[in-house]
Protein backbone atom coordinates (compact mmCIF):
# COMPACT_ATOMS: atom_id res chain seq x y z
CA UNK A 1 0.00 0.00 0.00
CA UNK A 2 1.00 3.63 -0.22
CA UNK A 3 0.86 4.22 3.54
CA UNK A 4 3.83 4.27 5.86
CA UNK A 5 5.91 1.18 6.19
CA UNK A 6 6.46 -0.86 9.33
CA UNK A 7 3.31 -2.76 10.26
CA UNK A 8 2.39 -3.95 6.79
CA UNK A 9 -1.10 -2.53 7.20
CA UNK A 10 -3.65 -0.57 5.19
CA UNK A 11 -5.84 2.45 5.92
CA UNK A 12 -8.75 2.65 3.51
CA UNK A 13 -11.83 4.84 3.29
CA UNK A 14 -15.07 3.29 2.08
CA UNK A 15 -17.30 5.96 0.51
CA UNK A 16 -20.72 4.25 0.48
CA UNK A 17 -24.07 5.46 -0.79
CA UNK A 18 -26.42 3.00 0.87
CA UNK A 19 -26.85 -0.07 3.06
CA UNK A 20 -26.12 -2.66 0.34
CA UNK A 21 -22.82 -0.97 -0.55
CA UNK A 22 -21.85 -0.77 3.12
CA UNK A 23 -22.80 -4.37 3.83
CA UNK A 24 -21.16 -5.72 0.72
CA UNK A 25 -17.76 -4.14 1.26
CA UNK A 26 -17.60 -4.31 5.05
CA UNK A 27 -18.89 -7.89 5.02
CA UNK A 28 -16.27 -9.01 2.50
CA UNK A 29 -13.52 -7.20 4.43
CA UNK A 30 -14.44 -8.94 7.69
CA UNK A 31 -14.98 -12.39 6.12
CA UNK A 32 -11.60 -12.23 4.45
CA UNK A 33 -10.03 -11.47 7.84
CA UNK A 34 -11.92 -14.29 9.56
CA UNK A 35 -10.78 -16.73 6.88
CA UNK A 36 -7.20 -15.75 7.74
CA UNK A 37 -7.79 -16.09 11.50
CA UNK A 38 -7.33 -12.38 12.07
CA UNK A 39 -8.79 -10.53 15.08
CA UNK A 40 -11.64 -8.21 14.08
CA UNK A 41 -12.95 -5.10 15.82
CA UNK A 42 -15.95 -3.21 14.48
CA UNK A 43 -16.75 0.18 16.01
CA UNK A 44 -19.58 2.20 14.49
CA UNK A 45 -22.93 3.74 15.43
CA UNK A 46 -25.33 1.05 16.71
CA UNK A 47 -27.41 1.08 13.50
CA UNK A 48 -24.33 0.29 11.42
CA UNK A 49 -23.28 -2.47 13.82
CA UNK A 50 -26.74 -4.00 13.24
CA UNK A 51 -26.07 -3.96 9.47
CA UNK A 52 -22.77 -5.78 10.03
CA UNK A 53 -24.39 -8.40 12.29
CA UNK A 54 -27.18 -8.95 9.76
CA UNK A 55 -24.65 -9.31 6.95
CA UNK A 56 -22.37 -11.74 8.81
CA UNK A 57 -25.01 -13.95 10.41
CA UNK A 58 -23.29 -16.65 12.48
CA UNK A 59 -19.84 -15.24 11.57
CA UNK A 60 -20.64 -12.18 13.72
CA UNK A 61 -19.83 -14.20 16.83
CA UNK A 62 -16.12 -13.98 15.99
CA UNK A 63 -16.17 -10.18 15.72
CA UNK A 64 -15.72 -7.76 18.62
CA UNK A 65 -18.30 -4.95 18.43
CA UNK A 66 -18.05 -1.54 20.11
CA UNK A 67 -20.51 1.33 20.02
CA UNK A 68 -18.60 4.24 18.45
CA UNK A 69 -20.56 6.71 20.58
CA UNK A 70 -18.76 5.22 23.58
CA UNK A 71 -15.34 4.60 22.08
CA UNK A 72 -15.28 7.95 20.25
CA UNK A 73 -16.54 10.13 23.06
CA UNK A 74 -13.35 12.07 22.41
CA UNK A 75 -10.92 11.58 19.53
CA UNK A 76 -8.08 11.08 22.00
CA UNK A 77 -10.06 8.38 23.80
CA UNK A 78 -10.60 6.53 20.54
CA UNK A 79 -6.93 6.50 19.63
CA UNK A 80 -6.01 5.21 23.04
CA UNK A 81 -8.75 2.55 22.94
CA UNK A 82 -7.71 1.33 19.49
CA UNK A 83 -3.99 1.32 20.31
CA UNK A 84 -4.70 -0.59 23.54
CA UNK A 85 -6.82 -3.09 21.58
CA UNK A 86 -4.06 -3.54 19.00
CA UNK A 87 -1.44 -4.02 21.72
CA UNK A 88 -3.60 -6.80 23.14
CA UNK A 89 -4.70 -8.44 19.89
CA UNK A 90 -2.29 -7.58 17.08
CA UNK A 91 0.96 -8.75 18.60
CA UNK A 92 2.75 -12.08 18.67
CA UNK A 93 2.43 -12.36 14.90
CA UNK A 94 -1.34 -12.14 14.93
CA UNK A 95 -2.93 -9.82 12.33
CA UNK A 96 -5.99 -7.67 12.89
CA UNK A 97 -8.71 -5.73 11.07
CA UNK A 98 -10.65 -2.73 12.30
CA UNK A 99 -13.83 -1.23 10.87
CA UNK A 100 -14.22 2.29 12.30
CA UNK A 101 -17.00 4.75 11.62
CA UNK A 102 -18.37 7.51 13.82
CA UNK A 103 -21.35 9.84 13.57
CA UNK A 104 -19.71 13.09 12.51
CA UNK A 105 -23.00 14.99 12.31
CA UNK A 106 -23.04 15.30 16.10
CA UNK A 107 -19.64 16.95 16.11
CA UNK A 108 -18.82 20.64 16.16
CA UNK A 109 -16.73 22.02 13.25
CA UNK A 110 -13.67 22.20 15.52
CA UNK A 111 -14.12 18.52 16.42
CA UNK A 112 -14.58 17.47 12.79
CA UNK A 113 -11.39 19.35 11.89
CA UNK A 114 -9.57 17.59 14.73
CA UNK A 115 -11.05 14.28 13.58
CA UNK A 116 -9.58 14.75 10.11
CA UNK A 117 -6.18 15.64 11.57
CA UNK A 118 -6.47 12.47 13.62
CA UNK A 119 -7.23 10.49 10.45
CA UNK A 120 -4.02 11.88 8.95
CA UNK A 121 -2.13 10.92 12.10
CA UNK A 122 -3.70 7.45 11.96
CA UNK A 123 -1.42 6.67 9.02
CA UNK A 124 1.48 6.96 11.46
CA UNK A 125 -0.20 5.85 14.72
CA UNK A 126 -1.24 2.46 13.38
CA UNK A 127 1.66 1.92 11.01
CA UNK A 128 3.59 -0.11 13.57
CA UNK A 129 0.78 -2.68 13.83
CA UNK A 130 -0.12 -5.47 11.36
CA UNK A 131 -3.63 -4.08 11.00
CA UNK A 132 -5.94 -3.26 8.12
CA UNK A 133 -8.26 -0.38 8.89
CA UNK A 134 -11.44 0.34 6.95
CA UNK A 135 -13.21 3.67 7.61
CA UNK A 136 -16.72 3.79 6.11
CA UNK A 137 -18.20 7.21 5.24
CA UNK A 138 -21.83 7.73 4.29
CA UNK A 139 -21.62 10.05 1.27
CA UNK A 140 -25.26 11.06 1.76
CA UNK A 141 -24.51 12.31 5.25
CA UNK A 142 -20.91 13.51 5.33
CA UNK A 143 -20.47 17.03 3.87
CA UNK A 144 -18.37 17.50 0.73
CA UNK A 145 -15.54 19.42 2.42
CA UNK A 146 -15.16 16.64 4.98
CA UNK A 147 -15.12 14.02 2.18
CA UNK A 148 -12.34 16.03 0.53
CA UNK A 149 -10.41 15.72 3.80
CA UNK A 150 -11.14 11.99 3.88
CA UNK A 151 -9.58 11.63 0.42
CA UNK A 152 -6.49 13.50 1.59
CA UNK A 153 -6.06 11.41 4.75
CA UNK A 154 -6.66 7.89 3.43
CA UNK A 155 -4.05 6.39 1.09
CA UNK A 156 -6.66 4.15 -0.55
CA UNK A 157 -10.31 4.67 -1.37
CA UNK A 158 -13.12 2.21 -2.07
CA UNK A 159 -16.04 3.53 -4.09
CA UNK A 160 -18.49 1.00 -5.43
CA UNK A 161 -16.40 -2.01 -6.48
CA UNK A 162 -13.39 0.17 -7.17
CA UNK A 163 -10.33 0.11 -4.88
CA UNK A 164 -7.72 2.68 -5.87
CA UNK A 165 -4.99 4.85 -4.39
CA UNK A 166 -6.24 8.27 -3.39
CA UNK A 167 -4.87 10.82 -5.83
CA UNK A 168 -5.09 13.60 -3.28
CA UNK A 169 -3.51 11.74 -0.35
CA UNK A 170 -1.29 14.16 1.58
CA UNK A 171 1.71 13.62 3.79
CA UNK A 172 0.23 13.42 7.35
CA UNK A 173 2.48 16.11 8.84
CA UNK A 174 1.74 18.46 5.97
CA UNK A 175 -2.00 17.81 6.21
CA UNK A 176 -2.03 18.50 9.94
CA UNK A 177 0.00 21.70 9.58
CA UNK A 178 -2.19 22.94 6.71
CA UNK A 179 -5.39 22.15 8.59
CA UNK A 180 -4.68 23.91 11.84
CA UNK A 181 -4.51 27.66 11.40
CA UNK A 182 -4.00 30.31 14.05
CA UNK A 183 -7.25 31.65 15.49
CA UNK A 184 -6.94 34.92 17.40
CA UNK A 185 -8.68 35.10 20.78
CA UNK A 186 -11.80 37.31 20.74
CA UNK A 187 -11.28 40.88 21.98
CA UNK A 188 -12.01 41.27 25.67
CA UNK A 189 -11.57 37.57 26.52
CA UNK A 190 -10.38 37.00 30.10
CA UNK A 191 -6.64 36.40 30.18
CA UNK A 192 -3.59 36.18 32.38
CA UNK A 193 0.12 36.49 31.59
CA UNK A 194 2.69 34.00 32.83
CA UNK A 195 6.41 33.98 32.50
CA UNK A 196 7.95 31.79 35.18
CA UNK A 197 7.25 28.74 37.25
CA UNK A 198 6.08 30.80 40.21
CA UNK A 199 3.25 32.16 38.05
CA UNK A 200 1.72 28.71 37.56
CA UNK A 201 -0.23 28.62 40.84
CA UNK A 202 -1.83 31.97 39.95
CA UNK A 203 -2.67 30.74 36.45
CA UNK A 204 -4.38 27.67 37.95
CA UNK A 205 -6.38 29.95 40.26
CA UNK A 206 -7.47 31.96 37.19
CA UNK A 207 -8.42 28.81 35.27
CA UNK A 208 -10.42 27.41 38.20
CA UNK A 209 -12.37 30.68 38.46
CA UNK A 210 -13.04 30.77 34.72
CA UNK A 211 -14.16 27.13 34.64
CA UNK A 212 -16.48 27.69 37.59
CA UNK A 213 -17.99 30.73 35.85
CA UNK A 214 -18.50 28.67 32.68
CA UNK A 215 -20.21 25.88 34.62
CA UNK A 216 -17.51 23.23 34.24
CA UNK A 217 -17.90 21.04 37.29
CA UNK A 218 -17.61 17.52 38.62
CA UNK A 219 -14.76 15.41 37.31
CA UNK A 220 -14.48 17.57 34.19
CA UNK A 221 -12.99 20.56 36.03
CA UNK A 222 -9.83 18.96 37.45
CA UNK A 223 -9.21 17.05 34.21
CA UNK A 224 -9.54 20.18 32.10
CA UNK A 225 -7.29 22.00 34.56
CA UNK A 226 -4.73 19.22 34.21
CA UNK A 227 -4.85 19.36 30.40
CA UNK A 228 -4.61 23.15 30.29
CA UNK A 229 -1.85 23.02 32.89
CA UNK A 230 0.23 20.78 30.61
CA UNK A 231 -0.17 23.13 27.64
CA UNK A 232 0.83 26.07 29.86
CA UNK A 233 3.82 24.24 31.32
CA UNK A 234 4.90 23.37 27.78
CA UNK A 235 4.75 27.04 26.79
CA UNK A 236 6.83 27.86 29.84
CA UNK A 237 9.47 25.19 29.30
CA UNK A 238 9.72 25.18 25.49
CA UNK A 239 8.15 28.51 24.43
CA UNK A 240 9.26 32.12 24.63
CA UNK A 241 7.99 35.28 26.32
CA UNK A 242 5.56 36.92 26.31
CA UNK A 243 3.17 34.12 27.25
CA UNK A 244 -0.53 34.45 27.92
CA UNK A 245 -3.59 32.26 28.40
CA UNK A 246 -7.14 33.28 27.51
CA UNK A 247 -10.37 31.52 28.41
CA UNK A 248 -13.50 32.11 26.35
CA UNK A 249 -16.49 30.35 24.89
CA UNK A 250 -16.79 29.54 21.20
CA UNK A 251 -20.21 28.18 20.29
CA UNK A 252 -20.84 25.26 22.62
CA UNK A 253 -17.18 24.97 23.63
CA UNK A 254 -15.05 26.45 26.37
CA UNK A 255 -11.66 27.34 24.91
CA UNK A 256 -8.41 27.52 26.82
CA UNK A 257 -6.06 29.35 24.47
CA UNK A 258 -2.35 29.44 25.25
CA UNK A 259 0.04 31.65 23.31
CA UNK A 260 3.78 32.17 23.41
CA UNK A 261 6.23 33.81 21.04
CA UNK A 262 8.18 30.64 20.36
CA UNK A 263 8.21 28.84 17.00
CA UNK A 264 6.16 25.98 18.45
CA UNK A 265 6.25 22.27 17.97
CA UNK A 266 8.40 21.24 15.02
CA UNK A 267 5.98 18.55 13.90
CA UNK A 268 2.40 18.94 15.20
CA UNK A 269 1.82 15.32 14.15
CA UNK A 270 3.82 14.35 17.25
CA UNK A 271 1.02 15.62 19.48
CA UNK A 272 -1.29 12.94 18.06
CA UNK A 273 1.02 10.06 18.92
CA UNK A 274 1.01 8.30 22.28
CA UNK A 275 4.40 8.83 23.89
CA UNK A 276 6.50 5.78 24.49
CA UNK A 277 5.79 4.67 28.03
CA UNK A 278 9.43 5.22 28.97
CA UNK A 279 9.73 8.59 27.22
CA UNK A 280 10.63 11.62 29.29
CA UNK A 281 8.64 13.97 27.05
CA UNK A 282 5.36 14.11 25.20
CA UNK A 283 3.06 12.96 28.02
CA UNK A 284 1.78 16.49 28.65
CA UNK A 285 0.18 17.31 25.29
CA UNK A 286 -0.94 13.70 25.03
CA UNK A 287 -2.86 14.18 28.27
CA UNK A 288 -4.24 17.48 26.96
CA UNK A 289 -5.60 15.63 23.95
CA UNK A 290 -7.15 12.92 26.14
CA UNK A 291 -9.06 15.33 28.37
CA UNK A 292 -10.30 17.76 25.68
CA UNK A 293 -12.69 17.48 22.75
CA UNK A 294 -10.21 19.11 20.42
CA UNK A 295 -6.60 20.20 20.76
CA UNK A 296 -5.29 22.59 18.12
CA UNK A 297 -1.61 23.38 17.71
CA UNK A 298 -0.93 26.22 15.27
CA UNK A 299 1.90 28.66 14.67
CA UNK A 300 2.54 31.75 12.58
CA UNK A 301 4.69 34.88 12.80
CA UNK A 302 3.02 35.82 16.10
CA UNK A 303 4.20 32.61 17.74
CA UNK A 304 2.53 29.41 18.84
CA UNK A 305 -1.14 29.06 19.68
CA UNK A 306 -2.50 25.95 21.38
CA UNK A 307 -6.26 25.77 21.85
CA UNK A 308 -7.88 23.19 24.09
CA UNK A 309 -11.63 22.93 23.50
CA UNK A 310 -14.16 21.33 25.79
CA UNK A 311 -17.78 20.97 24.70
CA UNK A 312 -19.97 22.36 27.47
CA UNK A 313 -23.29 21.22 25.98
CA UNK A 314 -24.45 19.29 22.96
CA UNK A 315 -27.91 20.79 22.59
CA UNK A 316 -29.39 21.76 19.23
CA UNK A 317 -27.41 19.17 17.31
CA UNK A 318 -28.82 16.47 15.14
CA UNK A 319 -29.35 13.06 16.65
CA UNK A 320 -27.23 10.11 15.59
CA UNK A 321 -28.54 8.76 12.26
Amino acid at each position, binding site marked *: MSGPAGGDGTHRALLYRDEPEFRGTVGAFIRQGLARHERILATAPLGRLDWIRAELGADAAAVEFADSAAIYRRQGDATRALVDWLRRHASDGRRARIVAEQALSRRTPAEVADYLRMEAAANVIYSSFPVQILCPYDTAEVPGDVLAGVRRTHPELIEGDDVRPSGSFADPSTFIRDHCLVVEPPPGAASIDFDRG*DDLAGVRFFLREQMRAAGVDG*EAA*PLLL*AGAGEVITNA*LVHGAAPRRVWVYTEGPALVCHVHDRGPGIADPLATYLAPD*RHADRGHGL*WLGRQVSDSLEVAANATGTHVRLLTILRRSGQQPVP
Partner: protein
Amino acid sequence: MVSGEHLCVLYQDQDDRRRLTAAVVRGGLAAGDRVMYVVPGAREVALARLEAGGIETGRPLDGGQLLVQSFGEVYGDPATLDLSGLVARFRLALSESVAAGFPGLRLTGEMGGYPWPVESLEQLVRWERMVSRMLGEVGIAAICQYDQGRLDEPAAAVIAAEHSGVATSGQRLPLALFIASAASLALRIEGELDLTNGPALARVLRARLAARPRLRIDLGAVTFADVGSLREIYQIAAGLPSGGQITLANATEPVRRILDLAGFRSDAVVIES
Protein backbone atom coordinates in the same frame (compact mmCIF):
# COMPACT_ATOMS: atom_id res chain seq x y z
CA MET B 1 17.60 27.18 52.23
CA VAL B 2 20.76 25.36 51.37
CA SER B 3 22.64 23.11 53.75
CA GLY B 4 25.24 24.96 55.76
CA GLU B 5 23.30 28.22 55.54
CA HIS B 6 22.93 30.18 58.78
CA LEU B 7 20.11 32.72 58.76
CA CYS B 8 18.59 34.85 61.46
CA VAL B 9 15.17 36.40 61.83
CA LEU B 10 14.34 39.32 64.07
CA TYR B 11 10.75 39.37 65.29
CA GLN B 12 9.00 42.55 66.42
CA ASP B 13 6.16 41.17 68.53
CA GLN B 14 4.35 37.94 69.35
CA ASP B 15 2.30 38.00 66.13
CA ASP B 16 5.46 38.41 64.14
CA ARG B 17 7.11 35.64 66.14
CA ARG B 18 4.24 33.23 65.39
CA ARG B 19 4.34 34.08 61.71
CA LEU B 20 8.10 33.75 61.42
CA THR B 21 8.31 30.52 63.40
CA ALA B 22 5.53 28.97 61.34
CA ALA B 23 7.20 30.13 58.12
CA VAL B 24 10.50 28.56 59.15
CA VAL B 25 8.88 25.22 60.04
CA ARG B 26 6.65 25.29 56.95
CA GLY B 27 9.73 25.88 54.79
CA GLY B 28 11.27 22.74 56.29
CA LEU B 29 8.13 20.68 55.66
CA ALA B 30 7.93 21.99 52.08
CA ALA B 31 11.43 20.62 51.57
CA GLY B 32 10.57 17.35 53.32
CA ASP B 33 13.43 17.97 55.73
CA ARG B 34 13.54 17.11 59.40
CA VAL B 35 13.12 20.26 61.49
CA MET B 36 14.74 20.48 64.88
CA TYR B 37 13.04 23.29 66.79
CA VAL B 38 15.01 24.39 69.83
CA VAL B 39 12.83 26.12 72.37
CA PRO B 40 13.81 27.91 75.57
CA GLY B 41 10.59 27.25 77.47
CA ALA B 42 7.79 24.72 77.60
CA ARG B 43 7.30 22.43 74.62
CA GLU B 44 3.51 22.90 74.80
CA VAL B 45 3.86 26.67 74.42
CA ALA B 46 6.09 26.25 71.38
CA LEU B 47 3.66 23.78 69.76
CA ALA B 48 0.73 26.08 70.47
CA ARG B 49 2.67 28.87 68.77
CA LEU B 50 3.15 26.72 65.66
CA GLU B 51 -0.53 25.72 65.59
CA ALA B 52 -1.53 29.37 65.91
CA GLY B 53 0.74 30.06 62.95
CA GLY B 54 -1.18 27.52 60.85
CA ILE B 55 1.07 24.45 61.20
CA GLU B 56 -0.67 21.16 61.91
CA THR B 57 1.92 19.63 64.19
CA GLY B 58 0.32 16.21 64.77
CA ARG B 59 1.60 14.34 61.69
CA PRO B 60 5.09 15.91 61.58
CA LEU B 61 5.53 15.07 65.29
CA ASP B 62 4.29 11.47 64.82
CA GLY B 63 6.50 10.99 61.79
CA GLY B 64 9.58 12.25 63.60
CA GLN B 65 9.86 15.11 61.14
CA LEU B 66 9.35 17.84 63.72
CA LEU B 67 11.47 17.56 66.84
CA VAL B 68 10.75 20.09 69.55
CA GLN B 69 13.62 20.08 71.99
CA SER B 70 15.07 22.19 74.77
CA PHE B 71 18.35 24.00 74.46
CA GLY B 72 19.92 21.51 76.85
CA GLU B 73 18.70 18.47 74.90
CA VAL B 74 20.24 19.79 71.72
CA TYR B 75 23.44 21.44 72.91
CA GLY B 76 24.05 19.49 76.08
CA ASP B 77 23.70 20.58 79.67
CA PRO B 78 26.03 22.24 80.24
CA ALA B 79 26.22 23.22 76.59
CA THR B 80 29.14 22.09 74.51
CA LEU B 81 31.38 25.04 74.02
CA ASP B 82 33.99 23.42 71.84
CA LEU B 83 33.47 23.16 68.12
CA SER B 84 34.46 19.52 67.75
CA GLY B 85 31.95 18.46 70.39
CA LEU B 86 29.23 20.44 68.63
CA VAL B 87 30.18 19.02 65.23
CA ALA B 88 30.12 15.46 66.60
CA ARG B 89 26.70 16.04 68.14
CA PHE B 90 25.19 17.36 64.90
CA ARG B 91 26.90 14.82 62.65
CA LEU B 92 25.07 12.21 64.69
CA ALA B 93 21.79 14.14 64.44
CA LEU B 94 22.19 14.42 60.66
CA SER B 95 23.04 10.74 60.16
CA GLU B 96 19.99 9.83 62.25
CA SER B 97 17.87 12.07 60.01
CA VAL B 98 19.22 10.47 56.83
CA ALA B 99 18.64 6.99 58.27
CA ALA B 100 15.07 8.05 59.01
CA GLY B 101 14.61 9.00 55.35
CA PHE B 102 14.91 12.78 55.50
CA PRO B 103 16.85 14.54 52.75
CA GLY B 104 18.12 17.18 55.15
CA LEU B 105 18.09 18.55 58.67
CA ARG B 106 17.14 22.08 59.57
CA LEU B 107 17.70 23.68 62.87
CA THR B 108 15.78 26.60 64.22
CA GLY B 109 16.31 28.06 67.65
CA GLU B 110 14.62 30.70 69.68
CA MET B 111 17.30 32.94 71.10
CA GLY B 112 14.72 34.92 73.14
CA GLY B 113 17.00 37.17 75.13
CA TYR B 114 20.44 35.64 75.36
CA PRO B 115 20.24 31.93 75.98
CA TRP B 116 22.29 30.14 78.53
CA PRO B 117 25.32 29.80 78.53
CA VAL B 118 25.72 33.17 76.88
CA GLU B 119 25.83 36.18 79.11
CA SER B 120 27.10 38.98 76.85
CA LEU B 121 26.87 40.08 73.26
CA GLU B 122 30.52 39.18 72.88
CA GLN B 123 29.90 35.63 74.07
CA LEU B 124 26.82 35.41 71.86
CA VAL B 125 28.88 36.38 68.81
CA ARG B 126 31.43 33.69 69.70
CA TRP B 127 28.61 31.18 70.08
CA GLU B 128 26.96 32.08 66.77
CA ARG B 129 30.35 31.96 65.04
CA MET B 130 30.92 28.48 66.40
CA VAL B 131 27.44 27.41 65.28
CA SER B 132 28.14 28.82 61.81
CA ARG B 133 31.32 26.75 61.53
CA MET B 134 29.52 23.66 62.77
CA LEU B 135 26.70 24.12 60.24
CA GLY B 136 29.20 24.48 57.43
CA GLU B 137 31.19 21.43 58.51
CA VAL B 138 28.19 19.17 59.09
CA GLY B 139 26.10 20.51 56.21
CA ILE B 140 22.87 21.51 57.85
CA ALA B 141 20.87 24.75 57.74
CA ALA B 142 19.76 26.87 60.66
CA ILE B 143 17.60 29.87 61.35
CA CYS B 144 18.08 31.69 64.66
CA GLN B 145 15.13 33.67 65.93
CA TYR B 146 15.76 36.84 67.90
CA ASP B 147 13.42 39.20 69.72
CA GLN B 148 14.22 42.55 68.21
CA GLY B 149 12.62 44.28 71.18
CA ARG B 150 15.37 42.94 73.43
CA LEU B 151 18.22 44.06 71.21
CA ASP B 152 19.44 47.59 70.66
CA GLU B 153 20.26 48.56 67.11
CA PRO B 154 24.03 47.97 67.26
CA ALA B 155 23.46 44.54 68.86
CA ALA B 156 20.93 43.61 66.17
CA ALA B 157 23.44 44.65 63.51
CA VAL B 158 26.22 42.60 65.12
CA ILE B 159 23.97 39.54 65.35
CA ALA B 160 22.77 39.93 61.76
CA ALA B 161 26.40 40.14 60.67
CA GLU B 162 27.10 36.75 62.25
CA HIS B 163 24.55 35.13 59.93
CA SER B 164 24.73 34.61 56.21
CA GLY B 165 21.40 36.35 55.74
CA VAL B 166 18.27 37.66 57.34
CA ALA B 167 15.14 35.64 56.57
CA THR B 168 11.78 37.35 56.29
CA SER B 169 8.27 36.03 56.68
CA GLY B 170 7.23 37.68 53.43
CA GLN B 171 7.55 34.41 51.49
CA ARG B 172 4.44 33.02 49.93
CA LEU B 173 2.95 29.79 51.15
CA PRO B 174 4.70 26.77 49.69
CA LEU B 175 2.82 24.84 47.01
CA ALA B 176 3.11 21.53 48.83
CA LEU B 177 4.31 20.03 52.07
CA PHE B 178 6.11 16.69 52.21
CA ILE B 179 5.15 15.14 55.53
CA ALA B 180 6.84 12.05 56.86
CA SER B 181 4.66 9.37 58.39
CA ALA B 182 6.00 7.20 61.14
CA ALA B 183 4.69 4.00 59.58
CA SER B 184 7.32 2.34 57.38
CA LEU B 185 8.92 5.62 56.39
CA ALA B 186 5.82 6.58 54.43
CA LEU B 187 5.22 10.00 52.95
CA ARG B 188 2.16 12.19 52.75
CA ILE B 189 2.02 14.99 50.17
CA GLU B 190 -0.30 17.91 50.83
CA GLY B 191 -0.99 20.57 48.21
CA GLU B 192 -0.05 21.00 44.55
CA LEU B 193 2.78 19.48 42.54
CA ASP B 194 4.13 21.29 39.48
CA LEU B 195 7.49 22.04 37.92
CA THR B 196 8.42 24.50 40.67
CA ASN B 197 8.50 21.87 43.39
CA GLY B 198 9.51 18.95 41.17
CA PRO B 199 13.12 19.10 42.42
CA ALA B 200 11.89 19.08 46.04
CA LEU B 201 9.70 16.06 45.28
CA ALA B 202 12.61 14.19 43.71
CA ARG B 203 14.91 15.04 46.63
CA VAL B 204 12.38 13.81 49.19
CA LEU B 205 11.62 10.59 47.28
CA ARG B 206 15.30 9.75 46.84
CA ALA B 207 16.02 10.30 50.53
CA ARG B 208 13.12 8.17 51.73
CA LEU B 209 13.84 5.40 49.21
CA ALA B 210 17.51 5.39 50.17
CA ALA B 211 16.47 4.69 53.75
CA ARG B 212 13.98 2.01 52.67
CA PRO B 213 13.35 1.04 49.03
CA ARG B 214 9.64 0.46 49.53
CA LEU B 215 7.69 3.68 49.94
CA ARG B 216 3.99 4.33 50.37
CA ILE B 217 2.97 7.81 49.25
CA ASP B 218 -0.35 9.12 50.49
CA LEU B 219 -1.73 11.36 47.73
CA GLY B 220 -5.07 11.98 49.48
CA ALA B 221 -4.33 15.66 50.04
CA VAL B 222 -2.81 16.34 46.61
CA THR B 223 -5.12 18.86 44.92
CA PHE B 224 -3.15 19.15 41.67
CA ALA B 225 -0.35 17.11 40.15
CA ASP B 226 1.13 17.80 36.74
CA VAL B 227 2.31 15.08 34.42
CA GLY B 228 5.95 15.99 35.01
CA SER B 229 5.64 15.36 38.76
CA LEU B 230 3.94 12.02 38.22
CA ARG B 231 6.55 11.07 35.62
CA GLU B 232 9.24 11.93 38.19
CA ILE B 233 7.71 9.37 40.56
CA TYR B 234 7.71 6.70 37.82
CA GLN B 235 11.26 7.52 36.75
CA ILE B 236 12.55 7.30 40.30
CA ALA B 237 10.69 4.01 40.75
CA ALA B 238 12.33 2.70 37.56
CA GLY B 239 15.73 3.23 39.15
CA LEU B 240 14.96 1.26 42.31
CA PRO B 241 16.86 -1.90 43.15
CA SER B 242 14.95 -5.15 42.65
CA GLY B 243 12.29 -5.54 45.31
CA GLY B 244 11.94 -1.76 45.51
CA GLN B 245 8.48 -0.35 45.08
CA ILE B 246 6.46 2.86 45.31
CA THR B 247 2.81 2.54 46.32
CA LEU B 248 0.55 5.44 45.44
CA ALA B 249 -2.29 5.49 47.95
CA ASN B 250 -5.51 7.46 48.40
CA ALA B 251 -5.16 9.30 45.09
CA THR B 252 -8.24 11.37 44.27
CA GLU B 253 -10.28 10.33 41.23
CA PRO B 254 -8.83 13.09 38.98
CA VAL B 255 -5.25 12.14 39.91
CA ARG B 256 -6.01 8.46 39.22
CA ARG B 257 -7.51 9.39 35.84
CA ILE B 258 -4.46 11.48 34.96
CA LEU B 259 -2.13 8.62 35.94
CA ASP B 260 -4.15 6.35 33.67
CA LEU B 261 -4.46 8.77 30.73
CA ALA B 262 -0.83 9.87 30.78
CA GLY B 263 0.03 6.27 30.11
CA PHE B 264 2.68 5.62 32.74
CA ARG B 265 3.18 1.96 33.49
CA SER B 266 5.73 0.38 35.78
CA ASP B 267 6.04 -2.84 37.71
CA ALA B 268 7.71 -0.81 40.46
CA VAL B 269 4.66 1.40 40.99
CA VAL B 270 1.48 0.10 42.60
CA ILE B 271 -1.67 2.20 42.61
CA GLU B 272 -3.64 1.31 45.71
CA SER B 273 -7.40 1.72 45.53
